[in-house]
Structure formats: structure tokens, C-alpha cells
């Protein structure tokens, strides 16, 4: 009986080991480019990753999408990334300060804030001024995250005082509260409204020009695939890359 149990355990161990090995090398000897990118780039970069894999047979692109500052922290702490695309300067600056960028960062896209209104527009929001109305439930990003800093700058430029019901941890959380109708309105990026696919409405406002987010991208030192890392950066800044970004609502430099 103990032999049989041992045999089973051994077989399970071999199966597990081979599964881990397969997962570890990511395909039969092919190269993998690891791209750390801001969460707002999820849709456009996923598309560009497929374009890259088609034009570079045998090369895989792997993404880690998250908040820019969290990604910057991981890169500074030695995470194995080949390319970093951030949603603001400060996150990229942290990586540059730690001497992990292999080339000067380039601005490849810009994002601007819009007012997102809940389905059916229960708050009757038409402009930034309407957000100051106490009867309108407004959510903003917390001042500590880029979208929150941008929102405060835009509101200051407009001279509008808003008492938010909540200061959310990231822009997708603001979008969720608006989409579910818990909040009447929130300030999010134009790309987020585009990604929400018609369930929330986006209203442009002129003061958004005071708080435009620049998106820098750079290949990283210690990249396992430096040549492919540079090639991916080139793709993002190429006409094909710009088309994919513009389609998702980004402004282009």
C-alpha cells in the first residue's frame, strides 16, 4: 500500500515539475518581452502585443498591467521587466532615478480627464460647475494617485469646489462607482469612458487642458531581450501604435 501511495505521489511530483518547467520558459526556447504598463493601456497595448508577435515570430509579449506607481516600485525593487510605460512623469522618474532606464523616456500618448455620468444621468450633470451641487454624489480619485492629482488641478483651474463622497484608490474604482450608479458623476480619463463601452457618458470640459497626463515609455536596463524591448518601444511610437492609441481615446504628442 505504501508503495502505491509513493508511486502516485512521485507521478504527481513529476507532472507538477514538468508543468512548472513549461510555465517557466514560456514556449519552446522562444524569447519573451515583459512589458510593465499602466492599467489604462490595457486595451491598446494588448492589441499592440498581438501585432508585435505577428511581426516577430517566436517572440512572446507578456504584460503586467497595474497602477504606474506600483509598477515603478516593483521595477526599482528588481522585477524582471524589459519595457516600462507609465501614466505620468513621477512614476517614470522613480525608475530613471534608480538607473533602470536604458534610454531616455519618450512621451507616446496623453490622456485627459472627462466628467463621467452614471447611466440615466440621475444627477443631471452638464458641466464641471454641476459637480459643486451638494445633491450630486461625486467620486474622485484620491490626491495620492495621478488621476486624483489631475482632478484637483482641473477643479482648481475651474474654480469649482467639490465635496466628494469618496476618494477612490484608482481611476477604475471611480468608473465602477459611476457605472453602478452609486455615484452620479466622477472625473475619469477619456480612455476609461471609451473602455466602458457606452454605459457611462463622458463630458469634455475645457479646464481638463490644465491637467493632461503624459505617458512616457522606456526600455529598461537588465532587460533579458534588449533588442526586442527597443523594437516594442518603436512599435508603440510608430504610426501603427499611434493609431491603436488614438482609437482608445488617447491624445497623441
Amino acid at each position: 500500500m505504501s508503495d502505491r501511495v509513493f508511486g502516485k505521489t512521485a507521478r504527481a511530483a513529476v507532472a507538477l515539475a514538468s508543468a512548472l518547467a513549461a510555465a517557466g520558459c514560456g514556449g519552446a526556447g522562444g524569447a519573451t518581452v515583459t512589458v510593465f504598463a499602466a492599467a489604462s493601456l490595457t486595451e491598446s497595448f494588448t492589441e499592440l502585443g498581438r501585432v508585435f508577435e505577428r511581426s516577430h515570430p517566436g517572440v512572446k509579449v507578456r504584460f503586467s498591467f497595474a497602477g504606474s506607481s506600483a509598477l515603478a516600485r516593483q521595477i526599482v525593487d528588481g522585477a524582471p521587466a524589459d519595457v516600462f510605460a507609465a501614466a505620468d512623469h513621477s512614476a517614470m522618474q522613480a525608475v530613471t532615478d534608480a538607473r533602470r532606464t536604458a534610454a531616455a523616456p519618450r512621451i507616446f500618448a496623453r490622456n485627459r480627464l472627462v466628467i463621467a455620468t452614471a447611466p440615466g444621468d440621475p444627477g443631471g450633470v452638464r458641466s464641471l460647475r454641476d459637480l459643486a451641487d451638494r445633491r450630486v454624489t461625486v467620486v474622485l480619485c484620491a490626491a495620492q494617485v495621478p488621476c486624483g492629482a489631475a482632478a484637483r488641478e482641473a477643479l482648481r483651474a475651474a474654480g469649482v469646489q467639490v465635496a466628494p463622497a469618496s476618494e477612490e484608490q484608482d481611476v477604475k474604482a471611480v468608473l465602477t462607482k459611476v457605472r453602478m450608479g452609486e455615484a452620479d458623476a466622477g472625473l475619469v480619463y477619456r480612455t476609461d469612458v471609451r473602455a466602458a463601452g457606452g454605459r457611462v457618458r463622458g463630458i469634455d470640459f475645457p479646464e481638463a487642458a490644465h491637467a493632461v497626463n503624459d505617458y512616457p515609455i522606456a526600455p529598461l536596463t537588465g532587460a533579458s531581450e534588449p533588442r526586442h524591448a527597443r523594437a516594442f518601444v518603436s512599435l508603440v511610437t510608430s504610426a501603427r501604435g499611434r493609431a491603436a492609441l488614438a482609437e482608445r481615446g488617447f491624445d497623441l504628442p
Partner: protein
Amino acid sequence: MTRGRVPWPLVIPAALGLAFLVLPPAGLVLRAPWSTLGARLAEPQVLAALRLSLVTATLATGLCLLLGVPLAWALARGGFRGRNLVRALVTVPLVLPPVVGGVALLTVLGRNGIVGRWLEAAFGVTLPFSTAGVVLAEAFVAMPFLVISVEGALRGVDPRYEEAAATLGASRWTIFRRVTLPMVAPGVAAGAILCWARALGEFGATITFAGNFPGRTQTMPLAVYLALETDPQAAIVLSLVLLAVCTAILALLRDRWVSGP
């Protein structure tokens, strides 16, 4: 069994287990910016978050006791069909990612939720973005800990005491109050402590359901998360405060209520 030497096959895994649990918090203590600790603690937002955390976790534990002990009794003693299914349902919040738990709460208790819509229309009560919302989010995530502990304790009780009480003419309610509850008190206390600790550390369901606003819904874990965005040192300080307060309270309670033999 008497207390004595731990048999050696248990010593090594026990030591490893202890190291695994103790070293990460010890790392926080080592990395803490001790020189600025005092100044950070004096910040009004930190105190507001700490107070809100303690108040909401305690209220959530109270709510869990009120609803969870009867539920545990029903699971342990109730003679209804589908008990195993109900028991499985009770543990759902344990496996659900807390953020999903928060969204689930919104679909029911949110402004457009099935119950929430009615609450707003009938009483003008909206739970999201309120302190009450924090309590509910914490209770949702923490109650299974209490129910499971209390149910386990109830199953361990010798039914002969309850039967004896019944033969002496006590009603089922009296038996529950005067016989059963005192016997499972240590289990209830242990469950309440687990429940309180889980509520205190709750993050995902809280920020999703109740949002984040200083003084109203920003508990310590939320403050820690946001501090991590800009100032990791401040995040470490906040975590240590939570850790110290939590450990102190639990140590005090443990000595008082659940002191073992």
C-alpha cells in the same frame, strides 16, 4: 495530556511555522522610520483612521455576534434539510475575493441595489459612502469566522447537559441561554476575536462598498494602501500602529477571556 516537551518531529515544522508568521511583521519593524514615528502619529488623519477602524470593527463584531451565534446554533442543532448547503453558503465570503464581495454588496445594498433601492425610497437611507457601509462590509467578510468557530464549539458540547435541563422543565430558549451559551462561551469569545481581527484588517470589500473618505469611511488599511502610493515609509508606520494596537488588545482580551489551562 500534560504539558511538557514538544516531540522532536513537531519542533522543526513548528519553528518554521512560527518564523514564517513572525518574520514579515518583524521586517516591518526593522524598516520602520523610527525617528519620524512620533510626528506621524500626531497627524489628525492617522488618529481619525485608527479610531474609525476600532469603532467599525467593534460594531461589525457586535453585529456578527447578534446574527452569527443564532446562525451557528441553527447549523449545529437545527433539524432542517439542506443544512450542508447552508453551511457551504456561510463560507462563501471566505473564498470570495473581498473586492468581489464589495461589488456583491453594492448589487444588493447599493443605491440601485435590490434592497438598497427600497431602503432609500422608504427611509432615505443610503449605505455606500457611509460609516454604516463600512460596518456592513466588515461584517460580511468577518462573520464566517465567528459562525464556524461557534458551530464547532456547539458540536463539542455534551448534549446530556441540555437533555438534563429539558427533563427539569426548562424551555428551549432557557436552555440555550442558561446551559448552552455558557458552555460554548470560550468558543464564542475565540470566534469574536477572529472576527474582530478580520474586520480590523478588512480592505477590499470596504473600499469597494463604502469608498474612501477620511473620517467617514477611511479605515487604517485604506489609509495604508493610499500612503503606499506616495510614501511607503508612512505606510509602514501606519501598519505598525495597526499591528501594535491590534496585538495589545488581543493580548489583553486573551488573558482575560480565553485563558487556557
